[in-house]
């Protein structure tokens, strides 16, 4: 667990510098680790990030490839709602960018999602993400 937290702090620092650079490549996920007393221990909950936005290029949203849920032709993502409940959101995906996928519709920037889809998780499960780990907190 401890190594997980340390690792996540480390990863976040890199992620932030990259984000500020406005470049969508090589981003790493800010990770919040699930605590043992949580109703459902979710390995990592990540915000939806944006990429692009640099000169002339349109902004786009990115999620980790591992987060994608497939149901036949339908593509979804488990989103952590404001009430800390999981809900399955159908999305439309675009290009792959390394370990990330561009999301074309269905998500907003900054929404929290389950970074690695686990078939055991399903809609309605409460996960604990608070205190909400924001990037700023971790950058300290």
């Amino acid at each position, binding site marked *: 667990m401890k190594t997980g937290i340390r690792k996540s702090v480390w990863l976040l620092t890199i992620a932030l510098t990259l984000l500020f650079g406005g470049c969508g490549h090589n981003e790493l996920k800010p990770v919040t680790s699930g605590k043992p007393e949580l109703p459902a221990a979710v390995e990592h909950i990540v915000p939806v990030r944006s990429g692009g936005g640099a000169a002339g290029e349109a902004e786009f949203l990115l999620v980790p490839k591992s987060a994608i849920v497939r149901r036949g032709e339908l593509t979804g993502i488990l989103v952590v709602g404001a009430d800390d409940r999981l809900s399955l959101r159908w999305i*439309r995906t675009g290009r792959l960018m390394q370990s990330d996928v561009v999301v074309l519709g*269905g998500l907003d920037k900054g929404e929290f999602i389950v970074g690695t889809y686990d078939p055991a998780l399903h809609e309605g499960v409460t996960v604990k993400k608070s205190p909400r780990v924001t990037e700023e907190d971790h950058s300290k």
Partner: protein
Amino acid sequence: MNEGIAGKLAKQFINSKITPLLMVAALLVGIMATFMTPREEEPQIVVPMVDLFIPFPGAPPAEIEARVAKPIERTLTEIPGVDYVYSTSMPDVALVTVRYKVGEDAEKSMVKLWSTLMKNMDKMPQGVQFPLMKKVSIDDVPVLNLTFWSKSRDPYEIRKAAVAVADELKKIKNIGDVEIKGGLKRQIKIVLDKQKLLKYNVSPLQITRQVQMANSQMTSGDFKQMNQEIVVRTGKFLESAADVGNIVVGISGASPVYLRDVASVVDGPEEVNNYNFFGWAAAAPKGSVSGEYPAVTLTVAKRKGGDASLLAEKVIARVAGLRQTVVPSDITVTETRNYGATASEKVMTLLEHLLMAVVAVTIVVGFFLGWRGSLVVLASVPITFALTLLIYYLLDYSLNRVTLFALIFVTGIVVDDSIIIAENIHRHFAMKRQPKLQAAITAINEVGNPTILATFTVIAAVLPMVFVSGLMGPYMSPMPIGASLAMIFSLLVALIATPWLSFRLLKTESGHTEEYDVTKTGYYKVFNTLLSPFIESPFKRWLAFGVVGLMLAGAIALVPLKAVQMKMLPFDNKNEFQVILDMPEGTSLEQTARVAKEVAAYLKTIPEVSSYQYYVGTNAPINFNGLVRHYYLRQKANMADIQVNLVHKGDRQAQSHDIAKRVRPGVQQIALRYHGNAKIVEIPPGPPVMSTLVAEIYGPSQSEQIALASQVKQVFKETPGVVDVDWVVEADQKVYNLVVNKEQAAFRGVSAEQIAQTLRLSLAGMDVGLIHTGNDLDPVTIQVRLPQSDRTSLHDLTGIFVQSQGMGSLTTRLRAGEMIPLSELVKVEEKIQEKSIFHKDLRRVVYVTADVAGATESPVYAMLDMDKKIQKIKLPAGYSINPLYTAAPTSEDKMAMKWDGEWQITFEVFRDLGTAFAVVLVIIYLLIIGWFQSFKTPLIMMIAIPLSLVGIIPGHWLHGAFFTATSMIGMIALAGIMVRNSVLLIDFIQIRRAEGVALKQAVIESAAVRTRPIILTSGAVVIGSIVMLFDPIFQGLAISLIWGGILSTILTLVVVPIVYYMAEKKSDKPSMTNVS
């Protein structure tokens, strides 16, 4: 006393052996008719409405309006029978809707439309494609929806099962259209790889050509050999994805390039174009799973004239049979709509109501006439209804909520004739002045003729309702027709069956033998003490009139005081409603699905909701309302429909309208968070309209119209009680216009068409043919398209390559085959999508729509409220507008606004009913003049009519109900009933006076003798109506009949004799002296 028709008839039948046979025969055919008449939910309303889709690819709305919509509208308005012509000019297509007058023959209308259209197709500009004509009719509304959903299967697999079931269902007799909503079809996708295309120098257009050419097979003919004919067939259709992949599409060096080299060929579900999910909600049956699951809906419509409940039963039974074979076990089939069951339920409720009413009336009659008397009345009712149902069957009516309404409505009235006859026979038997048979015939003679007259006054009252025009006409017409027929039958029954029954059942009580004397009855004593003071003292008389006048004025005053509000029809208590979600134009399918899901998640928590289903990217199965509102066109990415099913109305306290009101704020809050607009749509009880409140804005230019519309919209939003505000103006949607640099394109050997085609193929995809598998129920298309990941940005688009045609294009000398990126040929312009242009009857219009709920439930009050605010709007031109009510503005030079929507129908209905009422009064007046040969007497009788208002209006106030169209019908019918009471009263006075009784004595005697039948008949009406009091739609009618009936009966019994006395006082004097 001479014998009238009534007496003669009674004499014929009172001892005839044929009478009981006739009665039994009538009952039998009635029972048969009840089972043979088709049952359905909505009446068969023929509103020929035709949608014309006229594509004009590439044209902007303004051009479509000028070149396509307007010329077509102009020619269409020439067709006789056309009521309205609407048009919407959208980018690339014009939608023209023609609405014929209600009741026009649908087939003839189509032929007329077709010929007119064909006559004018030569005037269409080049590029306009052939119009698609779609007739919209009530039979397009599915009567049964089956939702296929599964925890483990995906939409593609579920659809497959649904298609298989649909194929089987089509074999059922009398089944109409079977449609499938949602799910994904099988498709062979040719997913192009840009890099590889470039590498092998193959263009997308080349691929489409090659695939089309490879996919051919034909019979070439035959040759003869050895006395035999041998058929030659050439080519082979593509049969699988592998076949498609093996097509050679080009050449690279010396080796062929196969399609599979430059694209991946995938056989599987098409790209996601809809989201359709089903879930159980708070009030789900026990043991249902939570969560929501991919779903596909199978809708079943019925054929014209079919029986909805029979069809639904058959389909359900068939599907149950298919469960084992066609439907995989992990797919659940849930019934999400069954209008057959609701129709049957309505019929059952009616029968229950009828039974209750008949029993209640029988008890009342029994109270006055003894059980034998009540048995006579009880026997006559079923015969009357049986005959009426037979007529419905013969006239091709179906049993629906309107025809049933007509039957409920007449329950209280049809027993009256029998009551009057039976009561009088009973009275004469009790009088014992004559032997039994003679007494019966005298009794019938005495009341027979006034009963005939009275029956015709009631018919005269209801029949003019046939002339209600517009959409409400067909809703109304079964009522006057059914009621009039029932009245005639009840009269015949009263004159034929009742005497026969009375003669056998009623007993002349033995025991007391003294001569019958009216003055010794309790009624006489009451009326003597009650009427004498008014007859003797003019002051008291005028005081009484004053009090009655005040009561009348007070009752009428409740209307302007808004204590009683007017509304066309109140909402019915249904088991469903819909949420219509509109996101701003340009919202992605997934975003819309997300909002729909959130709204659904909220609806799920409502305790009365049993299940829900949301449809994004495809419309929900329509109902009659959706048919008129064109909800079947709601298939864009920014639109979602949520079908909400409630628990059965018997299992919940709240009415569906109250639930709808309760969820509205919650739903709208969610939608608003995403800048969407959500509307709660209930099934209207009457004819559907575009929206309850519609403001049509006319003006010289579209921009001015939109400016005014936005101000009007603001007024709508600020007015309490006005909800679901929306308008037809689309939100700004971003458009990238790729302008081809013509010079450059020509120089590089590329045509503009080539660029446009390539782009269309890349983005929207292009169907290049079908694969011929032979065992797929849905056709399987082959589609060429770029993968989703390669068409997400402008950058992607301009990176698409087109192949130079070189010298073949005749515009260049360069060699063919060069792959040129679009970025070198086009310039990108960012624009806003042009707004659609709406026309109504050739005038440009912008609609602002809303509904009313909460603070005010009646659109008229909201309109009056908003009128003041709208008049205050300052227009840039310096004048203010005055909303119009009845007709569109004559000129488009100035801004103008007209109210439409429910108001238009309300206005038409109340106008027509008002006219009908006036006609009724005249006809009744004429009828009575004809009978009494006096101009004055009818007026006295008709005094009772306004007196009913004293009861009707406060009655509505007491119940907190709206004064609706059904209240108005009740009032009109009551006019007939009350005049009949007066007829009976005055007829008796005249009989007594002719026998030489003094005026005062005759008046009091008449009141005493006639009170019993009058109270009995009015009581029957009142008691027969009580069962309707709990039905939201018929409540108004019930209140009118109950309160109007009670009050005006009491007042009639007092006021009419007094007025008659006053009127006849002068002419009485000489006759008095003559007698004495």
